[in-house]
């Protein structure tokens, strides 16, 4: 192959400017994943009660494995697209489509769930926005937020990188202060053990809690998104990703332990029956589970007086950024999938006036609106509530969104682990500046490769979470697979009509693609290393072929 020609060939396609700093890369990931705990904490406390910290620990271990996998893949293949691209490259077209379609489900849920939770947080300061007391107002405002974000994305307005970095920085400082004050002045290990002993959930509820806890760790696509726009990503991404993974893990574990073992600064209101209730129960009830971090912060000694006023606003801003990243991310992934003929070309249609992928934005915001209606219906209409109670164990709106979010994440992450193993075996020539730890070296098809043990652990972890989701979520077990099935049917029809291979992959020149990727990323040393590896492997193959002929 004339690799030298490929290197010399100028890049014709317009590409994203690589101007993201290490802090920018961290804050990009943080504003996506960091917001998840604002939603996840209340849901998990409501489901897993005294074992919420165990649920977060289990999901957190799986998340660390996923984070390491994304770090390795994003540093080796620094292109936007994340899990969808890795699976597409490692496992072929149809699996690339399934992974991308699952990611698209997550992005559409992301739009609704975070817009919903954003209004929940604001309702702590503006009570008329409360979902429990004023469901119609809540519905209309969330609808308006989604419509507004769609409009802003069509016009082409995004929050600036500097604003993102500022909000992320402010939130890291704020969450750290909440934890410091909480652990220093109110955390009681005896109370933690007491809660864990006397409020330990049933196995079913624990599985439910674990499947919801994974939503606190969703959004790692942003790591690869940042890789596309970071200079020298192979060295920057591993550094920022490890820090991001640890920070998010600490916040999730710390909040859950604090909620179970904290002595509140002031009295907690009694429940509906007039009985005293512990803090974790108060945080997990329907009134507070959408804004649990703000409520928890208000009960932290000293600092809580101030936190009660600004945490709802800060949380709402972070959640709004996350919701916007859902609109932006879904349109960008659909655009990319359309470019590789996994989705119809209509998703690449760009508005003449604003030069944005208007069809993609409208389509996935439309899906988000449908999900919003489905999640809000039980509260808006008593007749529907009755139906939901019988069909879906009376799940509330935010739990329904959490169900689907967990399903989409678990499905796409499962494929990412398999893709990582496949790429380790079939693309050993691509240099990897970061590798997941604990590897077993062996020879595969004449090449020395390393088998990633952590990927196998992570795969079984995420598959178990997928199974927990299917067992415990009445809606998730139906709506999630239906989404995949609906997408697959569309994919098969589209590929057949276009006379493209349906179950097989189209031919791809991955070598040319990899050289272009590394050249665009400014990773010239890696590109040289890649070319040397390619030549060595080709020489080995030629020698083996000559030996066979002889």
């Amino acid at each position: 192959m004339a690799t030298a020609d490929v290197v010399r060939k100028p890049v014709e396609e317009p590409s994203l400017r690589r101007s993201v700093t290490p802090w920018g890369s961290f804050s990009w990931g943080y504003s996506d994943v960091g917001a998840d705990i604002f939603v996840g904490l209340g849901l998990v406390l409501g489901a897993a009660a005294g074992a919420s910290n165990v649920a977060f620990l289990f999901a957190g271990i799986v998340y660390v494995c996923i984070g390491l996998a994304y770090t390795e893949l994003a540093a080796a293949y620094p292109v936007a697209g994340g899990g969808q691209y890795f699976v597409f490259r490692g496992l072929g077209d149809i699996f690339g489509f399934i992974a991308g379609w699952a990611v698209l489900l997550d992005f559409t849920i992301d739009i609704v769930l975070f817009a919903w939770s954003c209004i929940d947080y604001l309702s702590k300061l503006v009570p008329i926005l409360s979902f429990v007391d004023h469901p119609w107002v809540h519905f209309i405002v969330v609808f308006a937020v989604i419509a507004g974000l769609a409009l802003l994305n069509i016009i082409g307005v995004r929050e600036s990188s500097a604003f993102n970095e500022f909000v992320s920085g402010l939130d890291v400082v704020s969450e750290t202060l909440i934890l410091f004050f909480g652990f220093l002045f109110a955390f009681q290990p005896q109370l933690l053990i007491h809660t864990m002993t006397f409020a330990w959930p049933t196995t079913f509820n624990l599985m439910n809690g674990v499947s919801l806890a994974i939503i606190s760790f969703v959004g790692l696509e942003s790591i690869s998104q940042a890789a596309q726009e970071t200079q020298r990503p192979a060295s920057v991404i591993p550094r920022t990703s490890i820090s991001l993974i640890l920070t998010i893990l600490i916040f999730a574990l710390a909040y859950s332990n604090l909620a179970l073992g904290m002595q509140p600064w002031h009295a907690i209101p009694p429940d509906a029956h007039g009985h005293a209730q512990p803090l974790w129960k108060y945080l997990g009830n329907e009134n507070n589970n959408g804004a649990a971090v703000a409520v928890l912060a208000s009960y932290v000694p000293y600092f809580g007086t101030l936190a009660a006023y600004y945490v709802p606003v800060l949380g709402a801003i972070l959640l709004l950024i996350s919701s916007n990243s859902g609109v932006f991310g879904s349109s960008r992934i659909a655009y990319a999938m359309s470019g590789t003929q996994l989705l119809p070309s209509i998703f690449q249609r760009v508005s003449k006036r604003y030069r944005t992928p208007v069809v993609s934005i409208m389509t996935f915001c439309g899906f988000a609106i449908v999900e919003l209606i489905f999640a809000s219906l039980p509260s808006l209409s008593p007749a529907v509530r009755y139906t939901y109670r019988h069909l879906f164990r009376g799940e509330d709106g935010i739990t329904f969104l959490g169900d689907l979010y967990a399903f989409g994440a678990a499905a796409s992450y499962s494929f990412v682990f398999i893709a990582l193993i496949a790429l380790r075996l079939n693309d050993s020539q691509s240099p990897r500046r970061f590798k997941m730890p604990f590897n077993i070296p062996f020879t595969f098809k004449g090449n020395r490769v390393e088998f990633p043990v952590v990927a196998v652990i992570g795969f079984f972890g995420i598959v178990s979470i997928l199974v927990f989701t299917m067992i415990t979520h009445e809606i998730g077990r139906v709506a999630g697979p239906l989404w995949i099935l609906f997408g697959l049917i569309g994919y098969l029809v589209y590929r057949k009509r276009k006379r493209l291979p349906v179950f097989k992959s189209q031919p791809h020149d991955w070598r040319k693609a990899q050289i272009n990727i590394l050249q665009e990323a400014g990773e010239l040393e890696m590109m040289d290393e890649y070319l040397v590896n390619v030549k060595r492997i080709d020489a080995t193959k030629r020698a083996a072929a000559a030996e066979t002929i002889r």
Partner: protein
Amino acid sequence: MRNLVRSEGYARARLVTGALFACLGAAVIVRTFGATGLSAQAIPALVLGLAMILLGGFRFRDYVMAKRSRP
């Protein structure tokens, strides 16, 4: 923002917060261990403490690397 991130003051601030995280992690481990001993229920709190210490370690490493790379 970019100048702030590149400044030595920022690296020092991260080092200080890293040290605070490490101290808090150590306090969580000592207090939990003191209250319950080595029980299964103490594991999530102990993991939290270890993760905090690890984060402190990473920030210290980043600070040393940043200091070395400066002329």
